[in-house]
């Protein structure tokens, strides 16, 4: 705490210092001896009012400023017993009180001034039908989103919609990209033509072989990672075996 009481009080009034309960006693003591600080303190509005009232009460110097501060703070007709007691014997504060209640009554009359009857219709026109349908849609969505089960319900409805429309269209539900679709078509074709493929490998007809090689190339290009899949493995083995067999045959013929 600053040794200079005046500085400290002013610092507090400017909200640059804190005031604990025990420090309040020190403050009260200083205010009793220093008129300048008392004036400053009484006029400073930023001091929390309860603290100010407490201090003024403790000072017991100016019951009228205390009362008038309370009058300015009035929230309802309910008067504090102490204030009510003071008003009963102080005409100046009684006047201030009456003035305050009259002012409050007059101000509360400004709350709902008269307004012409067309006002509502004008507002309704400005928030008219087209706006209202958009508003309504947003409202319904907002209302639904607020329900906790909404996400679950939405996901369920969405899944049913997708599956039933896929079934209606005769599509086997495979979540696939364009490339995957092509692969599936190719696998299908190759599987279907297993017999034809075997013939082709065994007979090694040039034109058919070219067509088949290009199909295999496409297959590899589309998915090199699936190269060890069942069909492909079988095909490679068969191909190698055929090659070995043919080489063997050639050796036999040459030898």
């Amino acid at each position, binding site marked *: 705490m600053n040794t200079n009481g005046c500085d400290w009080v002013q610092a507090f009034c400017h909200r640059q210092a804190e005031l604990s309960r025990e420090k309040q006693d020190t403050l009260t003591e200083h205010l009793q001896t220093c008129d300048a600080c008392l004036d400053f303190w009484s006029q400073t509005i930023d001091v929390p009012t309860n603290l100010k009232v407490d201090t003024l009460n403790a000072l017991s110097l100016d019951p009228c400023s205390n009362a008038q501060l309370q009058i300015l703070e009035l929230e309802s007709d309910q008067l504090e017993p102490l204030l009510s007691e003071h008003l009963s014997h102080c005409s100046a504060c009684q006047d201030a009180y009456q003035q305050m209640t*009259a002012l409050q009554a007059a101000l509360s009359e*400004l709350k709902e001034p008269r*307004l012409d009857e067309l006002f*509502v219709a004008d507002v309704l026109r400005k928030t008219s039908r087209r706006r209202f349908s958009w*508003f309504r849609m947003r409202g*319904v969505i907002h209302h639904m989103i607020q329900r906790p089960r909404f996400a679950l319900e939405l996901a369920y409805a969405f899944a049913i919609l997708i599956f039933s429309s896929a079934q209606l269209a005769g599509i086997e539900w495979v979540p696939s990209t364009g490339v995957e679709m092509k692969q599936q078509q190719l696998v299908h074709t190759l599987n279907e033509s297993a017999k034809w493929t075997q013939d082709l490998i065994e007979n090694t007809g040039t034109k058919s072989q070219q067509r088949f090689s290009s199909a295999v190339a496409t297959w590899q290009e589309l998915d090199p990672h699936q190269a060890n899949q069942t069909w492909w493995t079988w095909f490679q083995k068969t191909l190698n075996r055929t090659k070995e067999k043919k080489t063997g045959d050639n050796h036999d013929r040459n030898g």
Partner: protein
Amino acid sequence: MQDSELIQRCRLGDSLAWEHLVEKFQRRIFGLALTYVHNREEARDLAQEIFVRVFNGLNQFKDDQAFVPWLLAMGRNCCIDRIRRLKVRNRYHTDMPEQAEFADPSDSPHDDLETSGRNKTLYKAIDGLSEQSREMIMLKDIQGLKFREISSMLGIPEGTVKSRSVKARSDLLCALKDQGYQQGSLT
């Protein structure tokens, strides 16, 4: 019907509920606009803009919130935006008056002259306050919000709201005295 139920129905597109909501809060929103722009026509227009904004923003309202502070916060933001626009416009059209002449908010043949004159004086006194005090009078004394509600609306501690309110009331009383208001003339 509770406000929360009304809003729920508005969100589902119930146009009757929306009409009911506008009907219920129209004067309050108009009152709010009047503390910012003072001109009856301008305030009426501003109040409509606030309702359009509320309509578009109803989905941002959370069900555990209190509706009135939310509504007033939205209205307040709209008013501040309008004032900002007006200021920019005035900067480029210097021939325009800085402030429109005060219209009596309760301008109606049925109002007795004394009451409407008093409101005019009150608005004038409020307008002479600092922006901070004016806002406190508007939120606390005119709209009747609680300190806690103003604190969360403005994002400042409740103690600060309380002391600002005390200062605003005291400033307003001074301003009224300066305008020659004697004690008792408000009643």
